[in-house]
């Protein structure tokens, strides 16, 4: 049966239009309204708003806290990428290559935090970090290291690094599974050939495993970067609220504070535009640096 051009376009429209409409309503519309509101002085709690041109953007460049929030965000990005990727890779290799009998059990254990809500994780770790009853300070005291105990989340220097641990803990499982999937697809014959050529396990990891799971590593890193830039807001909000003295504010939590607590919705929208631009630039840079031809043996 030969289709006419009209029928072909109708069929394409039938397939694409619903998705496009949903995309337009739930992604494009909020995106452009965010951009629109960033040019207004608007409290977000009343109807009246005043057009102020690029004043919010000028304020953005002069706001000292913004620079800190960007640094905090990228600190979390870098530490999370390094921490999660090293540990997830280690566990993935260990559970696939070392023939551990309890591997399925560990797989469940490591994946467990991924099925927990971030809010629950945040509250759980708030208790772990509690200065008087918390597991960490009690553990340090038990080991005779009382001098190391401190109010982790209440200390301007230690609060941000303290957020890294729960974020890594919560993230390992998913990426471990992704890497395990990649490793499982590597044919055993490569390892046998490498072994015959005299490569030890360390060399096998670097020369066989790593190049062949590179696509999974790339996707994992990109995913961690994007979710951290857009999502670290939750853990910050739950565990420290951005404090003490802004020492843990990330771009998202600062946006929330400005838009919903200080009633500067227009300025909040401006911060949102900044997050979007920075996320895009970061992802493009990462794509550029992580480009690597697909390896096949």
């Amino acid at each position: 049966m030969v289709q006419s051009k009209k029928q072909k376009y109708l069929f394409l429209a039938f397939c694409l239009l619903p998705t496009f409409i949903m995309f337009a309503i739930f992604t494009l519309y909020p995106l452009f309204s965010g951009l629109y509101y960033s040019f207004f002085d608007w409290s977000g709690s009343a109807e009246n708003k005043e057009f102020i041109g690029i004043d919010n953007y000028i304020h953005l460049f002069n706001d000292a806290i913004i620079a800190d929030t960007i640094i905090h965000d990228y600190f979390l990005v870098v530490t999370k990428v390094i921490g999660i990727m090293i540990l997830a890779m280690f566990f993935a290799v260990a559970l696939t290559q070392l023939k551990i009998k309890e591997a399925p059990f560990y797989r469940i254990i490591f994946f467990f935090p991924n099925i927990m809500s971030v809010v629950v994780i945040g509250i759980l770790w708030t208790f772990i970090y509690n200065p008087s009853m918390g597991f960490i300070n009690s553990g340090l005291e038990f080991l005779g290291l009382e001098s190391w105990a401190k109010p982790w989340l209440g200390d301007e220097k230690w609060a941000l690094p303290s957020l890294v641990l729960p974020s890594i803990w919560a993230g390992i499982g998913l990426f471990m599974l992704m890497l395990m999937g990649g490793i499982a697809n590597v044919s055993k014959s490569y390892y046998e050939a490498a072994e015959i050529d005299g490569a030890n396990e360390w060399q096998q990891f670097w020369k066989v495993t790593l190049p062949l799971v590179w696509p999974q590593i790339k996707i994992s890193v990109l995913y961690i970067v994007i979710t951290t830039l857009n999502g670290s807001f939750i853990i910050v909000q739950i565990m420290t609220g951005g404090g003490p003295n802004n020492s843990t504010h990330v771009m998202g939590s600062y946006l929330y504070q400005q838009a919903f607590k200080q009633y500067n919705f227009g300025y909040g929208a401006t911060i949102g535009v900044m997050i979007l631009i920075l996320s895009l630039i970061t992802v493009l840079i990462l794509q550029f640096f992580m480009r690597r031809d697909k390896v096949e043996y």
Partner: protein
Amino acid sequence: MVKKLFNGRLLFLLVAMLMLALVAACSSDDDKDKDGEAKGEETTDNGSSDGEISGDLEIQYFVGGYGDSWWKEVIGDFKEKYPDVNIIEHAGPNINEEMRSRWVSADPPDVVYIDGAGSSETQMVEDGQLMDLTEWIKGVKLEDGTPLMDSFIVEPAQYDDGKIYSLPLVFDTWGTWYDKALFEEKGYEAPKDFESFMSTMGEIKEGEDIAPFVTTGQYPYYFLRGVLYPAFAAAGGEELLANVIDGAEGAWSSDAVLEVMKKVEEMQKAGYIDEGFGALNHTQSQMNFLLHDNAFIPVGFWLPNEMAKDTPEDFKYGFIPSPMNNAGEPGAIVPDLRPLAIAKEAENPEAAKAFVEFVFTKEYASLFSEHTGAIMNLTGVDLSTNENVPEYLIDANAMINDPEQVQIYNKPHPMSADLETPISNSLVSLMLGNISAEEFVKEAEKAAEQYRNSK
């Protein structure tokens, strides 16, 4: 097959649905205007052309530490008196967030009780959302005939143009709570001024091996409003307090403010402020207080009610004005009022006015203390003979009404969040010992300057 499919009814249905979705997504503004008109017409019907009130009356009230039992009783009584009025309640701990879209779309409830997270009287006034009550309130009288304006403990907040947009309903007072049972058992004395405050904290630190003072670092405004406001008032009166709240030039860097901040620095250096306070939210800090981990905490009157379920049986609450005053001076209290207001866009303003008038009576003031353990903002309400009022409230009420013990200072209006937030952040730094009092006042003055420029 495909041809049949697209030539048939299914195609028509699909296109119709898509069109409908587009129309629905794009037509919100038109609908709103139409609704607005329709509701406007209804309003005229509800009006008081015949002297009676009727129609729907929407009331928004936050349910926090004081619960909602008092509201339920008042609203029940109002319904009995005005059976033609249908009251629609919007209440709950998150009601301010839930109702935000109604306020944004200029379709607010008629009456609003401004309290709790996500609400700001200052912001509502700045946004022109509240009805001007200046003239109307002059004619409102209590049940005994005294004008309401003469019956407030604290008069309504007046904004730049001297206008009144809200009526202070709840007389909240920040102050410092102390662990009364511990004090009685160990013979510690409740402080009356900064000197005795420091010496008592020293004794407690030594005797109990605890940091005597705690507050919430996640919400530093507890310390700002609970300790610093009274301290500024004691040091420089209402003028300094107003200047500090408005971020007036030179207020934060004045000698009086620096002197107060030096006292805070002294508390920190002596190790009296719990060094873990920075991470605590208000509930955690209050739990630490109830667990005897700390002996002093600055919170408002609502503390016992808020923590009622977690309070150990042997725990006794003691309340004092935050003792930042110099020896020989009376303690200072700065009330923090929770107002009742009518929306400018109220659809049933007559019923709203009737409700506000109905609420402000001595009977409900007394009932308020029974239900909430706090005070309603009306003078001449005798709580001492009321058996249902908790002991700490009777003590506090007597203390507040004794000018030799306590001086009440009023602030003109709440501080804007744009000024309060940066100052609170620097305050945490000072209380953690990361900056000095001099550095704090410099940072605060800078924040005030930015705030003035942003207005």
